[in-house]
């Protein structure tokens, strides 16, 4: 969720009234944003870099406000203030319109074919006769940054360049060139660098995370004017020549992207929010973008869309009783111009402005009605259908077995499902090959602790003992949890398996305790012990000596129940004990519970 930091006094000036912190918090909550933190530049720097660095910085109160991830129109002071003022019915929603240039000749951007391999989309617009104060400038830069991070996905999908139109000469060209051929004075630099030099220069700067977007491309995107002056090298850096200053009057905005829809939304958002500062408010000058195939698309599109909803539909979705008139009125509070278009049907025609790109469906209108109506005003009801509850058999069995295990004096551990190769492999005396064959592997773990999903519970229990060696002996631990194994017959290629495992840690292994526990488990699962050879068919079990690298030779047995090997028990091998830093012997059991439900 993006957070915007806005100076409180500027915010209240723009809102035209003052609030206490509580009042503003309440307003935010009702509107669907969150006053996350109240701070100041000084406090922020002090917190992040220490008090020394904060000396002399501003004490002006800053409100940090959390904005829903799909509300790009609220990512700066201008947008937030507008929406809140409309919400408070101080003003009506602005109408954004295109206005052709005075001389009748639109600015033009020509897209070259070579861009299609790197960053195929470009859209543009012009804001005329804008007044830029320091506050507006800061907000403008901040909004671009927020859009880069959010809808732009850290500039991978969308990046923005804004320029002083009076310093450059159209038509503009959007091209992709061999990096060494690109040479210009980049923003806030004094000398010319080639593109490879710039990439080197920015390696340790705040721009470093964007470099990989084009680093390995054969050609880099570049925008220049009719005199060859470079406007920008998207998505990395603008040219210094055309940078915006407080004296700038006319702004040329170019947006390059890999996603056309997001490019348009970004452009619509910027021009809508900042056309507020134009001499003729809310008027935006269109630009022709000549596509590779020669066709011309004029941007921004500033789409107004119409959706029709009925009061009945809205009432049924929300669970309230309001008339079409009321709906139309409250939707207008959410910047959605609405009017009752059919009194008989209770139909409302809702106009969705270009700033509300989050509205994809009438269900989004439902939410706005609910918010404007007030969540607190909705009378809480209950679903009417009666349903019968039911448990998964696996959980039903697990819950009961867990209680029996505790009843037998064992304490429940709760270990992680993720572990390293070694935990389930070499430390257990099991070869890497076996782990490779059975375990699900994670491709992007941040640490070795998360290389695979565990295939057994015993290692986690041994690790738990290792961190509790100071506890009085004996330690008796258990877990009833799921492990994951690869299984080509399953849809995803893997399946969960529910296991029960228990360990006994003492001066001697206490195999007899674990053995007795198995007998007890079989008893409560109504499986009888049989000493007869061969074992009778049906619900009988017996132990069968086996060898396992995790266990001490001669001291490991399979548990064979109902004719199937369901698990293993024995004394853990001394090498395994030392791998887990254990100083006393351990007897262990691990059973696959899938056979029991």
């Amino acid at each position, binding site marked *: 969720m993006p957070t915007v930091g806005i100076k409180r006094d500027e915010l209240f000036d723009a809102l035209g009234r003052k609030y206490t912190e509580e009042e503003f918090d309440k307003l935010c909550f009702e509107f669907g944003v*969150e006053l996350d933190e109240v701070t100041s530049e000084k406090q922020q720097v002090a917190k992040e870099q220490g008090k020394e660095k904060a000396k002399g910085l501003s004490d002006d109160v800053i409100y940090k406000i959390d904005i829903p991830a799909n509300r790009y129109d609220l990512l700066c002071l201008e947008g937030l203030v507008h929406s809140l003022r409309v919400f408070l019915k101080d003003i009506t929603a602005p109408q954004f319109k295109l206005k052709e240039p005075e001389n009748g000749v639109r600015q033009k951007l020509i897209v070259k074919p070579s861009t299609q391999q790197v960053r195929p989309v470009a859209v543009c617009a012009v804001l005329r006769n804008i007044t830029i104060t320091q506050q507006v400038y800061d907000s403008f830069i901040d909004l671009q940054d927020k859009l880069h991070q959010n809808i732009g996905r850290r500039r991978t999908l969308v990046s923005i360049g804004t320029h002083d139109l009076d310093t450059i000469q159209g038509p503009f060209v959007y091209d992709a060139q061999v990096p060494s051929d690109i040479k210009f004075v980049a923003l806030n630099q004094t000398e010319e660098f080639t593109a490879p030099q710039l990439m080197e220069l920015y390696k340790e700067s705040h721009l470093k995370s964007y470099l990989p977007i084009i680093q390995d491309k054969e050609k880099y995107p570049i925008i220049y004017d009719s005199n060859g002056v470079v406007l920008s090298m998207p998505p990395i850096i603008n040219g210094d020549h055309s940078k915006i200053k407080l004296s700038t009057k006319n702004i040329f905005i170019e947006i390059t992207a890999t996603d056309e829809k997001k490019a348009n939304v970004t452009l619509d958002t910027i021009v809508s929010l900042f056309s507020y500062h134009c001499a003729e408010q809310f008027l935006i000058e269109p630009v022709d973008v000549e596509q590779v195939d020669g066709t011309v698309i004029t941007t921004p599109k500033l789409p107004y869309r119409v959706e029709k909803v009925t009061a009945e539909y809205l009432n049924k979705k929300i669970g309230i009783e309001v008339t079409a008139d009321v709906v139309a009125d409250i939707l207008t509070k959410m910047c959605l111009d609405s009017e009752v278009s059919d009194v008989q049907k209770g139909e409302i025609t809702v106009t969705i402005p270009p700033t509300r790109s989050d509205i994809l469906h009438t269900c989004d209108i439902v939410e706005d009605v609910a918010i404007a109506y007030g969540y607190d005003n909705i009378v809480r009801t209950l679903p009417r259908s009666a349903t019968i509850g039911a448990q*998964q058999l696996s959980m039903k069995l697990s819950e009961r077995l867990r209680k029996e295990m505790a009843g037998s004096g064992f304490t429940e551990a709760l270990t992680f499902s993720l572990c390293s190769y070694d935990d389930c492999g070499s430390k257990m005396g099991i070869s890497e090959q076996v782990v490779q064959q059975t375990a699900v592997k994670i491709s992007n773990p941040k640490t070795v602790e998360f290389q695979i999903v565990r295939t057994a519970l015993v290692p986690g229990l041994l690790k738990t003992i290792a961190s509790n060696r100071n506890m009085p002996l004996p330690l008796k631990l258990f877990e009833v949890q799921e492990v994951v194994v690869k299984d080509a017959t399953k849809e*995803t290629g893997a399946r969960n398996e529910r296991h029960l495992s228990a360990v006994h840690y003492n001066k001697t292994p206490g195999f007899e305790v674990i053995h007795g526990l198995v007998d007890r488990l079989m008893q409560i699962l109504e499986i009888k012990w049989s000493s007869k050879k061969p074992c009778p068919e049906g619900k009988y079990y017996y132990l069968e000596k086996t060898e396992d690298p995790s266990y001490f030779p001669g001291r490991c047995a399979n548990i064979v129940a109902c004719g199937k090997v369901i698990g293993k028990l024995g004394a853990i091998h001394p090498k395994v004990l030392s791998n887990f830093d254990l100083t006393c012997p351990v007897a262990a059991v691990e059973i696959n519970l899938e056979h029991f439900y």
Partner: protein
Amino acid sequence: MPEENLQDALLKQVDECKEGFVDSNQLAASLNVDHQSIVGTIKSIQCFDGVIDAVLKSITKWELTQEGKQMAENGSYEYNLYNAIPDDGITQAELMKKVPNAKIGFSKAMSNRWLKVDKTSKPPVVKKQVENVKDEVKNLILMVQSGSMDVSDKSLNELKKRKIVQQTSLKSYTISKGPEFKLVLEKPETDLTSQMLHDDSWKSKTFKDYNFNSLGQILPSGHLHPLLKVRSAYRDIFLEMGFSEMPTNSFVESSFWNFDTLFQPQQHPARDAHDTFFLSDPATTEDFPADYVERVKNVHSHGGYGSQGYGYDWKIDEAQKNILRTHTTAVSARMLYKIAQEKPFKPVKFFSIDRVFRNETLDATHLAEFHQVEGVVADRSVTLADLMGILKEFFHKLGIDNLRFKPAYNPYTEPSMEIFGFHAGLNKWVEIGNSGVFRPEMLRPMGLPEDVNVIAWGLSVERPTMIKLGIDNIRDLCGHKIDLQMVYDSPICRMDM
């Protein structure tokens, strides 16, 4: 002498004494035992209320030190030195060799003016100054030794300074009969035995009182893990409310079911490698219902069902990537798809509580895996008001009655609400869950009828458990590094208290 015999002897003496009391020191002397044994016997008799009265008194008394005892036998140093001087005198050096402790003797004899030093001869000689002397010091010592009271304090202090006598305090009890005096004591029983029940002897016996001022034994017990106790409590709540448990035994999930079916766009940050565990083996899932995939693809790229869609190029490759599920909503999606295929539609209430995985940077409140609780209700015309109502009931059972709903954003629910509960213990509003109405773009491609709405909510098990147990580092609650004592000591789980 054994303890019981001492008791008997002591009681007998108290009974027979003419003065009405006996002194414990005298008793010790007459019984020829150590005084300390008598003190022990007094204490043990005092366990029987009112048998004897014993009053402690402390007597200070002077006695001779080791040096004093020698002096009592051999005379004082000054006296011996005086007697060692021949009539015609002796050099000081020689005199010093004649008797032990001559140095002290010399200075004492000098200050008594018993001696003089004749400096006229060379070297000077020591001569007697008086004809004869009495050994007063020895007399005093003998008086102290005999216990005489006639020695003046001044003299005693003088002797004390010379480390010839020392003061000791002597404790002694004056023992007399108590109101419940008896000659034979019967020892109270520590506890009932089966033998006493058998022969009815418990009726005539006295019993020691239990000590209620200490803790009892620590029992050897098994314990359930606190987080899983909370999980059980949540299961109980859902079952009480008529919800059915979903099968969540699938940690490995395809991106398709985890994200795409939920109308979560393929460029969504949650689908980043920074946030999600992708799998290298098994890396992909290819087995999806073909017609459903087509509908999902369409709704993402072009919309439909009244939606604009996201307008991007949806790729099957992205959907095929296997991950560790990031939420149990993947399972909810599968269940909703399943019920959509069953005609006619029947209303359902589902729940699940199970592990989910995030490729998080670990800290005090984040782990790579945690437990998600999820509730889902699918019904014709179920409303946002119903969602609020069922949340009210659900959280009431968790002991939270004061709820607030904040509008929020979630890619697959609309409307979406964050749930805040007033926590009386923390005295503030805390976010306790997320909720919403599933989007038509998610439900309609599954084949659910248009008037079927699905409301859902989710929360974690860890957070409420941490608040409940007052744990502020999640790593003290989950994983192998926990302190088992925490598990041993954790209370039964009563969320509504």
